[in-house]
């Protein structure tokens, strides 16, 4: 049987051991947090065509994803992008997308992703997703972790089609792809 004293020292030792070992963590940032902040920055470098929303209206950033994705976007709610206030809308269903200026799509079945992006093709909705698969399906911006760092990819073809303009300052940092969505 362990005495209280022994148990305490054991816990203490374990904590010390763990705190020593996890130093590596303090130099890095959790991916989902970076995704949300990067999305905010992408919004800042994007201009929407005039009729997309009126001058006073907020910039609606719609998030489709699980609770962890949604939580990470809470931090950028009410932040400014140019002279607009970001308003986060957590989507439960992929409905009424007309209100979104930016749509962040976390994981979505292949079979549903493609038709959705096809429907949004000519609408002024900036679509942001998490990998190249997303760009190939017709998405505009892909954020992917490659070798421990985030890589930004932009599908210029899709951006142009929707009449959105992404600042050249952002394009310079991005891996540019020019992919028309594959139609067989």
């Amino acid at each position: 049987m362990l005495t209280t004293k022994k148990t305490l020292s054991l816990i203490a030792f374990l904590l010390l051991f763990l705190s020593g070992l996890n130093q590596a963590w303090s130099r890095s940032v959790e991916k989902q947090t970076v995704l949300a902040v990067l999305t905010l920055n992408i919004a800042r470098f994007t201009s929407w065509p005039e009729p997309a929303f009126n001058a006073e209206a907020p910039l609606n950033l719609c998030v489709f994803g699980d609770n962890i994705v949604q939580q990470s976007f809470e931090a950028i709610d009410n932040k400014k992008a140019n002279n607009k206030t970001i308003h986060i809308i957590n989507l439960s269903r992929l409905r009424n997308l007309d209100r979104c200026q930016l749509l962040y799509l976390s994981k979505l079945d292949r079979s549903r992703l493609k038709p959705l992006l096809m429907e949004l093709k000519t609408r002024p909705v900036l679509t942001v997703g998490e990998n190249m698969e997303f760009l190939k399906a017709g998405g505009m911006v892909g954020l992917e972790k490659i070798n421990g760092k985030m890589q930004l990819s932009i599908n210029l073809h899709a951006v142009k089609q929707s009449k959105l303009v992404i600042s050249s300052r952002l394009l310079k940092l991005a891996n540019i792809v020019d992919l028309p969505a594959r139609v067989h």
Partner: protein
Amino acid sequence: MDQKKKRPNQFLQASLLCFTYSSITYSGQNELINLSVEDLLNIEVVSVAKKAKSLNDSPAAIFVITQDDIKRIGATSVPEALRLAPGLDVARIDSNKWAISARGFNGRFANKLLVLIDGRSIYTRAFAGVYWENQDVMLEDIERIEVIRGPGATLWGANAVNGVINIITKHSADSQGGLLIAGGGTEELGFGAFRYGRQLSADTTARAYIRGFKRAENVRQSGDGAGDDGDKVQGGFRLDSQLSAQDSLTVQGDAYRSENNQNTVLPQRPPPYQNDFNETIDAFGGNLLIRQHHSFSSVSDYSIQAYYDFYERNEYFLKESRHTIDIDFQHRFALLDWNDMIWGAGYRYSHDDTYINDKNGFNKIRSSSRNDQLFSAFVQDEITLINDTLWLTVGSKFEHNDYSGFEAQPTARLMWVPHRQHRLWGAVSRAVRTPSRLDHDVDILGRVLPPQSPGTPPVAVTFKANPQFDSEQVISYELGYRTTIIDNVSIDFTAFYNDYSSLITVQTGSPIFNPAKGTMDLPNTFTNSTKGQTYGGEIATVWQMLDWWRWDVNYSLLKTVSESQNHTLDKSPQQSASVRSLITLRQDFDIDILFRYADSNKTVSIAGTTTVNDYVSMDIRLAWRPIRDLEISLVGQNLLTDRHLEYKQEFITKPTEIKRGMYGKLVWNF
């Protein structure tokens, strides 16, 4: 004394301080927000094993076991992975057999839980249940396992009375490249797997795998070997092709062969009235599934699926083979902008050849072969009452089977999201458990009681089939609440009240002298004469204490009320709990611990009702990734005791205690 006592406390305080300090990482979001895009693209990013509630908008008690979960508890089979889900009673009978049920009624022949692998039902009509020892998948290719407690009959059909388990494998595009697994240990004597996936053309990807294992035997209470060792080999493939922008096709299949040893105990007329021998149960089977999916738009699509499934199982007492063909169609569409409709229809044809060993003169099967048909259709509408806030789902399954005829299984569910951190749901549903081949067609000699006094005949307790045996039914009431109100914590509460009727009951007839065998026969017949209620709830909690340290805590409560004396319904622990800690010390090192507690439970066997004591068990996994694509892990299972009993099988085998086990494993991705 005092001083001595103080020292460790100071030590503890100091280390706590140190610990707290080191956990303040620079991941504070406010700091990040001020970074430029260049900086954001240059910082070191880590992915964390956070637990997502991906189905948190479903008005049902859903728990998702992800690929990461399966890996990090060191599961070597699907049942081991299922131990993570609250409300599921997962009890290991022996090395290869399992008793798994949701919300009570557990047993080797647990018949109120429906299980599907990629849309293919693995619930067999033979005895109404799942042969878990024969159902296996390449664990690394599982995308997720959805465990739904409560009736799921409206979508999935009969026998989803207390739950549905959907095992969903990865799209072949997500399992590309090579994967080699090798390992072994004390109980898992040896296992290996190889998978290779590649792109066949611009629009087609595929993978193929082979996997095998050999397991050691467990022990009896006496300490003697239980003779339950066995092995299995399984292979399979999956191919996914994007036929056009709107159409995709999936073809997949598996084949297996297993040889499991068993110490069989069967009753017999001559003294000593039972016969005890070792045998090998030889089983093999396979399946082929094809599914086409067509998208009209993001809110409208249809899928058509067909599969063929075959198995054969040979043991002394029972030889059985079964062929099943199933065709299923589903169509989803939006109506008037506030209805999401889904409807479908299906047909299943099943042919079996069953042989019951009748050498004892009592066992009998009414027809050695039977062809069964099942016709089904369903419709379900999700109505948006208030945008993003309130939904009502109503629907019903209608089916016709050859055993109990027509069945309707409706449901009504309400989902309310008053605030993004709160979700409430409620449901009322009906579901049925349809009769099995065993219920309708098979007579069995259960046991032979030795003569009470010299000159009196032995008593033969027999179980008689009843072709009039009807479906068991439930009306289930459920409530659920999910919240993320506390930072980094998500809590999922569910409560249920299940009202059962027409439950299976063994009705004992009057003893008759059997001159041919010289026995007093005590016939028992299956009838539908019991009512009963269960109520209880489950709590599933996830606490992301630190980026690299997560806790999962689950608790389940189950109360049973039976209105019949001769039928025991409470065959699952009243309480069970699990505490799981997942630590990723460094990006290349994990320490994972799982504690499980199961209250004592009853098992109802042919010999009567017995109790299985409560138990606590602990599993630990240590994993190290020296290079990115290589992982070495060490897993200890059931570490707290040498051996413990989880369940006693109803018939045929003696109680088997599960031994402590250790194994090492190597996983190489290339």
